[in-house]
């Protein structure tokens, strides 16, 4: 099982993307390579926060567990996996 991201790590959206929100989901275009990505409602919930400002990983886990029926450990694992994938795609940065 991959290690979860540290709660104090800062997650921020890169400038190499443009996105839209539709029907509770998000479509993101990576403007460096032209690849489109989709996020479901939970991913979109987090992404809309990152569009406004960087957040700590702990804040995002808290926001998701407050909004959705998921326990903290599962949420941290799922978000860690999602954010690492998005960082690989240069959609966000983990610092």
């Amino acid at each position, binding site marked *: 099982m991959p290690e979860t991201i540290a709660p104090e790590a800062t997650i921020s959206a890169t400038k190499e993307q*443009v*996105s*839209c*929100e*539709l*029907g509770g*989901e998000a*479509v*993101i*275009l990576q*403007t460096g390579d*032209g*690849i*489109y990505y*989709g996020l479901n409602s939970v991913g979109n919930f987090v992404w809309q926060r990152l569009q406004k400002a960087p957040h700590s990983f702990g804040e995002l886990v808290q926001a998701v567990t407050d909004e959705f029926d998921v326990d903290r450990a599962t949420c941290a694992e799922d978000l860690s996996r999602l954010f690492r994938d998005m960082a690989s795609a240069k959609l966000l940065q983990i610092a």
Partner: protein
Amino acid sequence: MGLRIPHNRVDELSREFEQFHTIKVENFVHGDLLRKITASIATAKFSPRTDKGIAHELCMEESLPLHALWVSLNDTALFEFIHRVTGAEPIRCFRGRMYKLLPGGEYFDSWHDDAADGHRMVGMSINFSPEPYEGGVFEIKQLDPERYIRAMPNLGLGDAIFFRIGPQLKHRVSAMAGNRAKTAFAGWFQDSPNFIDLLRELSQETGHN
């Protein structure tokens, strides 16, 4: 996002739209998005496109800045604004293309309604001409009884005009004059398909991700 949506002017704009079936939003596209698009236009390839005798224009090839604009235009916040101003619903996607009209008579856009497919509800044209052009003015008229409604010049870079689509309304772009081209991104807010299905459909056609 690179779009300036005047949510604070909804009441004023909806009254104008009700009366004239058209409105203009100045500086609609701005900032980095505007700069990237104008830069891509300067080097892009345009190819002739004919629409069943209605129009003959030059159409821009696909580019990343165009896709970025397209994504920005398919957002709930903009759809909600268009709905509140025009009454159109449900808006599920925006489809458009970047076109160019050159002076000299070869390229034209004649009176038409855009209503044939039944899915287009509101049209939009964003000016991306690097310099002011002559002629090429958007005009709209009503049918039965025929009544000229309005001419809507649109010369500001990044300014957008929005217009109602319907079987009782026709619009055109008047003949170009002078010696400069008009470049605009134009298309329609539609009730079908939804944007995500449209992307899937296009990716299957092109083989893109």
